[in-house]
């Protein structure tokens, strides 16, 4: 590493960018893992219904299936925007 590199503005290292991106995508994929195949489409259609009344982002909806003692729970979270 040359002495001049200390003078240059610090660029974010690619490894930390990689880690951050991976953590996000892996968490998202784990949330829908093992769930039924119709989940993404269900999420899409639910979002469309909600959007008829309130304008929400794509990221504002979170859907997942949990298994608890033999029964499945469909969990749906929609964050509504501030008025």
């Amino acid at each position, binding site marked *: 590493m040359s002495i001049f590199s200390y003078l240059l503005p610090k660029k974010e290292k690619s490894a930390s960018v990689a880690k951050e*991106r*991976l953590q996000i995508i892996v968490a998202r994929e784990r949330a829908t893992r093992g769930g039924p195949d119709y989940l993404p489409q269900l999420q899409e259609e639910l979002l469309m219904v909600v959007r008829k009344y309130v304008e929400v982002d794509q990221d504002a909806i979170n859907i997942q299936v949990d298994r608890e003692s033999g029964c499945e729970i469909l969990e749906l979270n929609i964050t509504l925007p501030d008025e």
Partner: protein
Amino acid sequence: MTKIVVVTSGKGGVGKTTTSAALATGLAQRGHKTTVIDFDVGLRNLDLIMGCERRVVYDLVNVINGDANLKQGLIKDKRVEDLFILPASQTRDKDALTLEGVEKVLEGLKDMGMEYIICDSPAGIEKGALTAAYFADEAVVVTNPEVSSVRDSDRILGILSSKTRKAELGEGDIPASLLLTRYSPERVERGEMLSVEDVKDILAIDLLGVIPESQAVLNASNSGAPVILDSESDAGKAYEDAVARFLGEQRPHRFLTANKKGLFGRLFGAQ
């Protein structure tokens, strides 16, 4: 008692076959009767890595179909006692591999007194990979410190937790451990490569070993001798450590820091 181990990854080209060959050879070197099976139907390659490509007469599908018996299908390694190879078939018929057929082969190997059966999985999440993993008691997930490989490994871990026979029988997840290959401590120190800690954080499984990026791996495949037989090489030593850990020994991880030794150190320094 026979232990069936699947070596898997999701992504191709990360070192599954190299690892299967090294792990099987290492186990056999320690006196455990071991068979390594190539599940990559249509793209046979374990035979080349093991250096027995010219001795292949029958293959896994031949044995399943009854064209040959198990003893005829197995190739006995010429260098290491107690090591056997069962090559994949080169047929293009992917349906040739049935779960019933594979189960029969595995039972046959158990009856022969195999202690370990290493299943070298094909890449992907299709039938071939699922078949290789189905009967496994344990999984070794081979990963490169690179985004697509890590993501695919996580996907495979999810599949392993629901699609193995143990999972289907409600016996829970099979233990899975991480083998990080093609690791370059220099690049990690420069912030250009995910570190072993990063990958462990994301995948959240036990670390079996870290294999450094090494010329020895290509040399080994060029000559058809599993890299673990190159006991002087860094990769060979790292695989040797991984085998020891696989058998329950505690060993510190080596080759995780950049080598800053000078010529003197290289010539006379121990590890």
